[in-house]
């Protein structure tokens, strides 16, 4: 071991290098408040490693981004964990950056001769936000897509911002080029810029050292320590706390959320990630021509204040007391950001429309991710919904049924009964009132035997009872029924109205009209699709082809599912 170290030292000077790193003097000794910078370096390096790992599965194109993210998150072993760490890691970087900033401001560490440390730090803070913004779009899910739209929209609204926006998003609209550009920024440009600034920041830090507490020089000297191992141990322990928090967050949220694939035509409840909420809230106060106050003037003023801080600080000592007005400015800034963030959160929590939209978005996300398990068609993320059996069933319906039947959202022919609001109580009522209406059997040849029942012959009250009875014949699928009404209806059906002259209700028995046992149930629908001319169904008068020989069993099942799904949830 020693021989190897000697060999390396002779060639690379590793011992000198190590002592350069390890023996850095810390006047006044190791302190917990010096850990933030190290924790940020740790977080950044961890983000780099995690980003490289995610890139082994991620594909930055509008057609692949969502599907590849869903794949790495939901299929690949530990993908959810690594993506979750990366996601929460970005929030952690924002939080620790703010802590580092506050500790530096309070300690007066920005003062001469450390102005450049301060400025490079501010620039890196900006980069952290740029990382967050560019990374957010990459999954190409609803939230990332719409949140980033808000950001680039703001960019386009400031004077001279439009060309910049077009350049950034690679065209007038979001598409493949937006993703490749954001990807290049996120994984090449920003990391390189951050590494360069970090190098400078650390070199400056080593030149000037920590900003020790205000103690007499001798006292600082007496307590002085070296970076290694005392400060490094504190740093590493702080990193461990950070890591534990991240792992805890990641496990408790089961990683980062992935919303449904971006759908440019949808209206998603767009919200930026929490660390941009204050800007979002600020925009609510400044409408129209005043918007520039929120997008340029206020943020610009804040940035100017921060940049100017080391140059306007003329206080005789570093004591916070001596710098109260400046620290007050910092406090005002942070307080403002915190207040705006809180306001945005509170407003959203009270906004029922937003909450409902969010719930719908979660449900859609869950569905999309389930469907993605079967693989997504190359047409792109949104094509995941093609995997939905209902979509396939609709296509079958269009092909085989729509010539005669009509479905909600799929207008078809009027040669056979409609499936719009199918088997609702209103549907039954209208059917009994006039089965010869084009909505029912009016367009079907040979189905004109059933007489209309106008209100003079059948009062609304009695009709309601008969309908209730018919719904009860469906079985469990018909939903809950009013037992008393059913009984009244049964008597009307059998005695007064003599419906049973044409309609049997005992399974299997046939008469002139279809047997109504189980009418409208899934099994009944499937039988009708297979062979509607069965003696106990529509018999010889049936005009519908026998699909039992034309379609496969799964196709018939899918169609029966689609049709029974047309029954309103609470059939009225």
């Amino acid at each position, binding site marked *: 071991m020693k021989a190897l170290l000697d060999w390396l030292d002779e060639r690379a000077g590793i011992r000198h290098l190590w002592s350069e790193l390890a023996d850095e003097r810390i006047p006044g000794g190791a302190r917990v408040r010096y850990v933030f910078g190290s924790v940020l370096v*740790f977080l950044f390096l961890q983000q780099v490693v995690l980003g490289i790992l995610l890139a082994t599965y991620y594909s930055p194109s509008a057609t692949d981004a969502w599907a590849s993210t869903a794949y790495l998150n939901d*299929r690949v*072993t530990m993908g959810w964990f*690594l993506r979750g760490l990366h996601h929460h890691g970005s929030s952690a970087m924002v939080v620790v950056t703010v802590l580092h900033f506050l500790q530096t401001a309070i300690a007066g560490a920005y003062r001469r001769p450390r102005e450049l440390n301060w400025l490079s730090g501010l620039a890196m803070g900006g980069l952290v936000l740029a990382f967050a913004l560019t990374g957010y779009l990459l999954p190409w899910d609803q939230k990332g897509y719409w949140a980033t739209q808000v950001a680039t929209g703001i960019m386009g609204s400031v004077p001279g911002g439009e060309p910049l926006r077009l350049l950034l998003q690679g065209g007038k609209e979001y598409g493949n080029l937006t993703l490749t550009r954001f990807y290049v920024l996120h994984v090449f440009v920003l990391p390189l810029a951050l590494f360069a600034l970090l190098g400078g920041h650390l070199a400056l830090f080593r030149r000037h050292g920590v900003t020790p507490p205000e103690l007499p020089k001798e006292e600082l000297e*007496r307590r002085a*320590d070296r970076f290694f*191992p005392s400060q490094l141990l504190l740093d590493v322990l702080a990193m461990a706390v950070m*890591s534990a928090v991240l792992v805890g967050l990641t496990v408790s949220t089961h990683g980062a959320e992935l919303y449904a694939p971006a759908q440019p035509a949808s209206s998603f409840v767009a919200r930026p990630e929490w660390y941009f909420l204050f800007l979002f809230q600020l925009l609510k106060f400044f409408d129209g021509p005043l918007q520039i106050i929120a997008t340029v003037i206020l943020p610009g003023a804040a940035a100017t204040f921060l940049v100017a801080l080391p140059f306007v600080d003329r206080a005789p000592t570093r004591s916070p007391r001596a710098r109260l007005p400046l620290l007050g400015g910092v406090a005002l800034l942070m307080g403002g950001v915190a207040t705006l963030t809180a306001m945005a959160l509170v407003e959203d929590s009270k906004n029922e429309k937003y909450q409902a939209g969010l719930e719908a978005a979660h449900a859609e996300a869950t569905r999309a991710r389930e469907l993605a398990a079967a693989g997504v068609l190359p047409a792109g993320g949104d094509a995941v919904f093609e995997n939905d059996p209902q979509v396939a069933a609709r296509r079958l319906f269009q092909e085989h049924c729509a010539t005669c039947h009509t479905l909600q959202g799929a207008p078809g022919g009027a040669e056979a009964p409609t499936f719009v609001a199918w088997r609702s109580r209103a549907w039954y009522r209208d059917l009994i009132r006039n089965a010869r209406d084009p909505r029912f059997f009016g367009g079907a040849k040979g189905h004109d035997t059933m007489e209309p029942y106008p209100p003079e012959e059948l009062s609304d009250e009695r009709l309601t009872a008969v309908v209730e009875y018919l719904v009860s014949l469906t079985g469990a699928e018909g939903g809950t029924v009013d037992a008393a009404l059913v009984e009244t209806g049964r008597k009307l059906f059998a005695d007064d109205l003599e419906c049973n002259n044409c309609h049997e209700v005992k399974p299997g028995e046939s008469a002139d009209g279809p047997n109504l046992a189980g009418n409208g149930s899934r099994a009944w629908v499937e039988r009708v699709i297979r062979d509607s001319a069965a003696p106990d169904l529509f018999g010889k008068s049936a005009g519908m082809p026998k699909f039992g020989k034309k379609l496969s069993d799964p196709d018939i099942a899918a169609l029966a599912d689609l049709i029974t799904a047309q029954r309103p949830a609470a059939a009225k």
Partner: protein
Amino acid sequence: MNDGDEKQPGRDGADPARRDLLKTLGIGGVGAGLAAVVGGPAVLFVTYPLDHDTVSGGDGFLPVGRSDQFADGVPVKVDVLADRRDAWNRVVQVKVGSAWVLRDGGVLRAYSTVCPHLGCAVDIDDEAHKFKCPCHRSAFTFAGAVEGGPSPRGMDSLEVQETGGLVALRYQRFRQGVAAKEVI
């Protein structure tokens, strides 16, 4: 580790060098733990393709036509289409290969169109009543046997099935240029 005793006199009487050693061990231990948080899952993540099919589909029997399309002694070239999975993508009905299908005394036979010699697409010579490879002039009988040219073995037969009026075959690829038929 030299002047530690001056700066931080061991209150508990511990040897400063020993304390530094403990701190170093602490740094090493915690550091290793931090690396493991990402490193452990990373190994499982990156090696996922080793024990999962990332590209799949097309290995079962695939329908290539109706029974009545294939007459005795008349080879018909069919395309073999299959649904494929490629990581996150599902691709519907892509061509995975082609085959010659014919009946031989009523028995259905299928041969891969890939020449066993160097992989050209074997064609048919209707007049000569033979399969011929356009690249190196290998010739095969309709029974698949080599009848001339450099091919080291006969045409590669494929498993074929006939059920419910449909013909299906299992498409496979074989090692080229060797006498033995080995699935690859």
